[in-house]
Each structure stands twice: as C-alpha cells, then as structure tokens.
C-alpha cells in the first residue's frame, strides 16, 4: 500500500470518543527520515493522533502503516516505534540503566546486546555518569535525556515525541531543541513531534502539519507555512508577534486589484493571488517584520501612522501603531526605536502580504 520511502502512512483515520469526534478522515504520509511536527493549539487532536500512531489509542476508522506494514491493530511494542513523553514518564523505582533496559528485558534480549545498546545510547546522549541514579536524583533536562534514551535503545524506525520540552525552562528548552535536531541529523530516523510551540516547530521540522479541530489545516515546509499560510488560522497561529489582520474590501481598479479599508488603499499589483479573485470583503494580513519603518519612498505602499506603544525586547523593538482605526504592529531593530506618540512613516511590499476570504478564511 505505502510507496517506497514512506515511513508512516495514515489513511482515512478517524477517532471518536462516544459522540465526540476527535479526528476526521485524516491522511498523512511521512517520508523516511523526515522530521514532521504536528503543531496546533491544545485540544486540536495532535497528541491524540500521536497516540493513535503509537497504538495507545484504538482508532475508529482507517488504517495506519509503518514501514509499509499495516499496524492498525498491532500492539505498541510491535510497531517499531519509540515514544518520549512530556512528563518524562521514567519509572521512578528504577535506576537510569534499568529504565533504559526495561523494554529490552521485556523483549528478552541477551544481556550483552542490552549492555551494548545502553552504552551506545548513553554515549549519544552523554548520560553515562547518570546510569546508576534514580530519576528523582536527576534534573529536568537529564530526565528528558533519559526518556529520549529509552526510545533510542529500542532501535526503532520511528520516534514519537509528545511535547517533550514543555516541562523544561526556557534555556534548557532551547538547548535540548538543538540536541534533538542534532540527534535527528545523526540517526536519520523518522521523527514525529507534537508541540504547541511554534519556535520548536519552525526550527525542527522538515515539514509542519498545522492542526485545528482534528483536521490538518496545512502540511508544508516551515518557510512555506510561514510565508504562504493557506488560511487565517494558520496565519494567526504562527508568528510572534502575530500577523496583523485588517478587515476591508477587495476592489478592482482598471485591471489592477486593490485592498481598501477606511480611506486607505493598498495596491495589490505585486500580490500573487491563488486564483482570479472576486471583489468583496477580505482580510489583509501582514507580518510585523515585513514592514519597513521610516525608510522613505521606494515601497509599493507607504503611509504614516501614530505610535501608540513601544515595547523594547532587547534584540528588537515592537511598535504598536494605529493605521486609521486599526491596530498594526511593526517590528524594528532597536536602533530605530521611535518615541511614544510620534508619527512615523511605514512602507511594505504587498507581495509579502496574505489575503484571506472574509467568510471562509481561506487564502486568496
């Protein structure tokens, strides 16, 4: 069924708990060695999907293939997966070494093989000095490393991560993020990674699947998702500070289109429409960092706006403007910080904008 090079294939998967439907006829193909991130707000079904892949939840409809083998009804241990959990889920009464070897002992592997695999995992994750400790004597980062090691020793094809960094503080999270990326580069395993953290998603993923309400909204490379979101939800979910949205109308002037709100007209000559648009209500989206600031002419669209609030963030500064009656944020470098209540000129190229249908929220 699955094509060559496909590691995990999910076909028409549905899951409902009683009357509540969590996942609806979901399809997802993950290539061999690919790093897929399932991204979405809490309750979007991303962890549920991961549990289905792991075999920890029985699905209602559909099929799951791993390495071309139909594992829909297989036990978790027979699926060739390793899983890392948010709460680490280390066995508290066992030492790190026993934690790592538990699955191998269950499988009845010979002692030498177990020792070999533990030594390899411990070396990769640099946890050799911790092997004889209990989980309670480890820090959060060390615990998560052991949890990754437990998946590593299983020598599996697919790694499943369920928000593995959410319990760590910001600094450790950044460190371990890089380590996971290095680990993926070293091992070349297929990895499916659930998170609600867009930075983790952007930095780690080969492709991101943005989920909402049990449906994959967009499955694309991080840059594509960031620059060309397919709908308003994806556009608003990714990016911090969030994309600016302006409600207005799409109008045709001669052969060119323009976006109109209040008394502002934005020419859309450079904007690449998905298909031939029709005049009517629309939403104009522009990322705060795609707006030039006090840079004079040379942009397809320039205007002036009043500064409401300035938020210095160290590396750069967030400026909250009023564009007509609409809020508009602009990210500028720290050297160019304006004062409160200044009037500033801004300019941008509508090429970088995203236009959405006012009703459906889909990209125009």
């Amino acid at each position, binding site marked *: 069924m699955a094509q060559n090079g496909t590691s995990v294939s999910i076909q028409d998967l549905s899951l409902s708990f009683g009357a509540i439907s969590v996942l609806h006829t979901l399809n997802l193909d993950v290539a061999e060695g690919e790093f897929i991130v399932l991204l979405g707000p809490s309750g979007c079904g991303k962890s549920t999907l991961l549990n289905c892949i*792991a075999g920890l939840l029985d699905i209602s409809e559909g099929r799951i293939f791993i390495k071309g083998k139909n594992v829909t009804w297989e036990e978790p241990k027979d699926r060739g997966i390793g899983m890392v959990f948010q709460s680490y889920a280390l066995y508290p009464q066992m030492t790190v070494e026993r934690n790592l070897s538990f699955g191998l002992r269950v499988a009845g592997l010979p002692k030498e093989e177990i020792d070999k695999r533990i030594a390899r995992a411990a070396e990769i994750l640099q946890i050799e000095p911790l092997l004889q400790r209990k989980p309670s004597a480890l820090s959060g980062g060390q615990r998560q490393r052991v949890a990754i090691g437990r998946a590593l020793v299983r020598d599996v094809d697919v790694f499943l991560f369920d928000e593995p960094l959410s319990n760590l503080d910001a600094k450790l999270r950044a460190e371990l993020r890089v380590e996971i990326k290095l680990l993926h580069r070293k091992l070349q395993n297929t990895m499916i990674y659930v998170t609600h953290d867009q930075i983790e998603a952007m930095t780690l993923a080969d492709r991101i699947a943005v989920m909402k309400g049990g449906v994959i909204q967009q499955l694309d490379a991080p840059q594509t998702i960031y620059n060309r979101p397919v709908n308003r939800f994806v556009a608003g979910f990714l990016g911090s500070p969030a994309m600016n949205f302006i409600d207005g109308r799409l109008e045709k002037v001669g052969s060119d289109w323009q976006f109109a709100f209040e008394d502002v007209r934005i020419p859309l000559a450079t904007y690449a429409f998905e298909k031939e648009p029709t005049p009517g209500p629309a939403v104009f989206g522009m990322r705060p960092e795609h707006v030039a600031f006090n840079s004079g002419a040379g942009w397809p669209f320039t205007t002036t706006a009043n500064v409401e609030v300035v938020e210095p963030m160290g590396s750069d500064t967030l400026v909250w403007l009023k564009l007509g009656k609409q809020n508009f944020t602009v990210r500028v470098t720290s050297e160019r910080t304006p004062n409160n209540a200044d009037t500033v000129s801004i300019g941008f190229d509508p090429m970088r904008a995203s236009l959405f249908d006012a009703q459906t929220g889909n990209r125009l």
Partner: protein
Amino acid sequence: MTAGQITAIQPVQEGQDQAGAGPFGPKPRRISAGRIGLYAFLVVAALFFLIPVYIMIVTSLKGMPEIRLGHLFNLPGEPTFQPWADAWLHACTGRDCNGLSPGFYNSVKITLPSVVISIICASVNGYALTFWPYRGANLLFGLLVFGAFVPYQVVIYPLIIGLSSVGLFASLPGIIIVHTIFGMPILTLLFRNFYAAIPVELFKAARVDGAGFWRIFFHIMLPMSVPITVVAVILQVTGIWNDFLFGIVFAGRPNWPMTVQLNNIVNTTTGVREYNVNMAATILTAAVPLIIYFVSGRWFVRGIAAGAVKG
C-alpha cells in the same frame, strides 16, 4: 562612633539608620492569647482521653484486695503482674480456662491471610480499573463504592446461608472470605484513587516498552504502591483485629478471635469479678492496633511525600 569602634552591633545600627525605626530581620515570635487557649484546650482534651488508659493500667497492676478499697486513681501499692499472666494464660471463658492466648493466635490466623488476600485483590482491582478500563468498569466501580455504604448487619444472614451451602460456614476460610469481601470496597477505592494520581504516561511508556498487564503491575505499579499499601495494611489490620461481629458469627467456636474471647472473659459471671484481669486482658487485646499505629504513623507522612515522577 569613631572608625576604631567597629563592633558586632554595627550592622544593626546601620540598618536602623537606613530604615528609621521600621521593622527589620526575622519576625519576632509572639505568643497570643488565642495560642495559649488553643494549647490549653488540647492539653486538657488529651488528659481527658488518657484518664481511662491510666485507670486501666494502674488497676491491672493492683491485686484484688487493693482494688476493693475503691481508690480508683491511686497508684498500685504493691505492683503485681499476676493479672497479666492470668489474663494471658488462665482466665476462664465459659468452661475453658486457657486465658486469652488461644484467641490471640486465632486472631493472627484470621487477620494475616485476610489482610494479605484483600490487599492483593484490591490493588489489582484498582490498577485494572484505572489503567485497563473495560466495558462496565465504571458501573462496577460505582457498585463497589456503593458497597462501602451497606450496613454489615443487612448482609449477615444471606452470607450465612451462602457460606453454609458451600460448607465454609463457621470455619477459618469462611471468616477470611468474609473479611476479604468487606474490605474490598474501601480498599479498591483507596488503590484506584492512588493509581489515578499516577501520570497515565508512565503506563503508556511501559506499553510502548512492550510490558503487559501483569508486568506493568509487578514491575512498575507495585514498587510505587508502598505508601498506599502501608495505609491499606493499617486499615485492614486494625479493622479485622477489632472485629467482633463477623468473628463471633462466621469463625466458629474453635476459631473465635481475641475480641470474642475478651468479651467472654469479661462477661463471665461465675465467682468474683476480677477487674485487674479484665483490665489486663483488654489492654492485651488492644495492644496490636495500638502498636500498628505507633510504628506506622511516620509512614503516613512519608506516603504523602513520596512521588518522584515530576519535579
């Protein structure tokens, strides 16, 4: 103050300079009237509840002539341990005059297997109800909890009929079965709630590692269950040891537990009423639950504090 007069007091004076007369340093401990009242009440209450214990102990150490003088609170003039020996070895229960000791061994024979079997069943119950929910699991759990509220007296007669029809009425296995059944609701509730507090991810991780029902139970859940098991042991040992009703109904005369024997000793109406022996016998019977509480008290605290999953 000149520069040469640096003393240990100086930092304090500096603090006063900076903050004026405002408070600084650790908050002083004040004894308020409310505190005094509280402790006074606690001490009085403790003494009040200790009075019967005191009377029991001093009476058990007196000879009968001294007791007849009627000075209830006096310390024994000629302390003697004879009443204790009598209570243990010679006190009469009806026709037999073997003291309490046969009852003690009967109680041990009833309590030990009942505690072990009921806790094993309840921990498996709680584990299955929490991690392997099957169709009707919630209904079963609801029925079990309901069972905790059924008065014992209501089910005694049906139980007698049931046990006698399988030939277990008035036997040691019979009383053990009865105690196991009646321990089930509360113990299952106890274990289920304990396991419900364990992150389900631990169970999922074990499943991914390939462990099955029993392996997860014995290798992962049971080692974590020490605190709750101690609580369950305390509950069951004290409950079963103190039981009188089931013992007298279901155990049968040769297996009567200590509580029943104690009742027979104290209520024997022939001859002189030996208060000192009665007191000694009562203390002996109550000793086991008391020791359990004293020894295991700190385990309660440790049980609550234990938990190495998150941190």
